[in-house]
């Protein structure tokens, strides 16, 4: 398959993730959509690594996976803390810091 097809699939997945971040209200689902966007970026990186025939893009994708795992850990910790304090699990309700 041509590399361009992979890039098109990556763009589509990234768009879906961005739309999810903008439209959903549950922080859990927003974290899932951020994962979608990170994965789309990973697909692009690996497609470019294949295109150039060296491994740098694949290493970059691995590091992105590490960062995504960290982001999930901290995000889920925040959600658990919200649940403990009986705060509403809804990003529209969390507006204490709004200016």
């Amino acid at each position, binding site marked *: *398959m*041509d*590399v*361009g*097809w*992979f*890039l*098109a*699939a990556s*763009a589509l*997945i*990234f*768009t*879906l*993730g*961005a*739309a999810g971040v*903008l*439209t*959903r*209200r549950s922080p*859990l*689902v927003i974290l*899932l*959509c951020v*994962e*979608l966007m990170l*994965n789309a970026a*990973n*697909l*692009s990186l*690996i497609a470019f690594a*294949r*295109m*150039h*025939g060296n*491994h740098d893009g*694949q*290493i970059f*994708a*691995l*590091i992105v*996976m*590490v*960062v995504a*795992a*960290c982001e*999930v*850990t*901290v995000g*889920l*910790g925040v*959600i*658990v*803390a919200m*649940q403990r*304090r*009986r705060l509403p*699990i*809804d990003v529209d309700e969390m507006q204490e810091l709004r200016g």
Partner: protein
Amino acid sequence: MGAVLFFVAATGAVAGAIGVVVLRNPFYSVLALVGHLLSLAALFLLLHAEFVAVAQVIVYAGAVMVLYVFVVAYVGGQAEPLGPRAGHGLKAAAAVLGGMLFILLSIATLGSGLGFMDTRGAVVPPSFGSPTEIGALLLTKFVLPFEIAAFLLLIAAVAAVVLARRRGGLSAVEEQARYSAMDMLRPTYTGTMAEAVGDRRELPKSPPPEPDEDDRS
């Protein structure tokens, strides 16, 4: 063969992504993301990224998704009302903006005129993307990012424990549950610092425990 595999895997990945965004129940969203990640691993295999594909399945579809499922079970996977605040006009605007973002990204990548875009990529040896090559690179050329990633994971683990721990110590109920029948048989000062220094005075009554932080709100 490659084309068939690509279209099957890409369809699965896009369908999983749509499922994540559209499904109301967070639990089903997590399951859709697992399907998406498995399809994406197949795409990685088509791009000769074997090690990344295996890491994707083990780390993402295995470990991270288990974490998600646990948190969804803890928070309670109540169906989210997508409802009244976002009207139909906003939804149409979101769809239009999403389409525009897709077109923009497609122009940015496909229209860049890169030389290899319409080919299958550079000619690579069969060992391209194997664990041997990736491991050798991680320990030579990319050893600094590798170490930083390890440190970042440690920081994130500590941060998660700090964020999710129970504040204010044990609650009164748990404190009560720690007493056993043996406590009635021995004086209050047994096993305390007062006994260790030979001070046999009776301990004062302990003040009532502070209300736990969970019970406030």
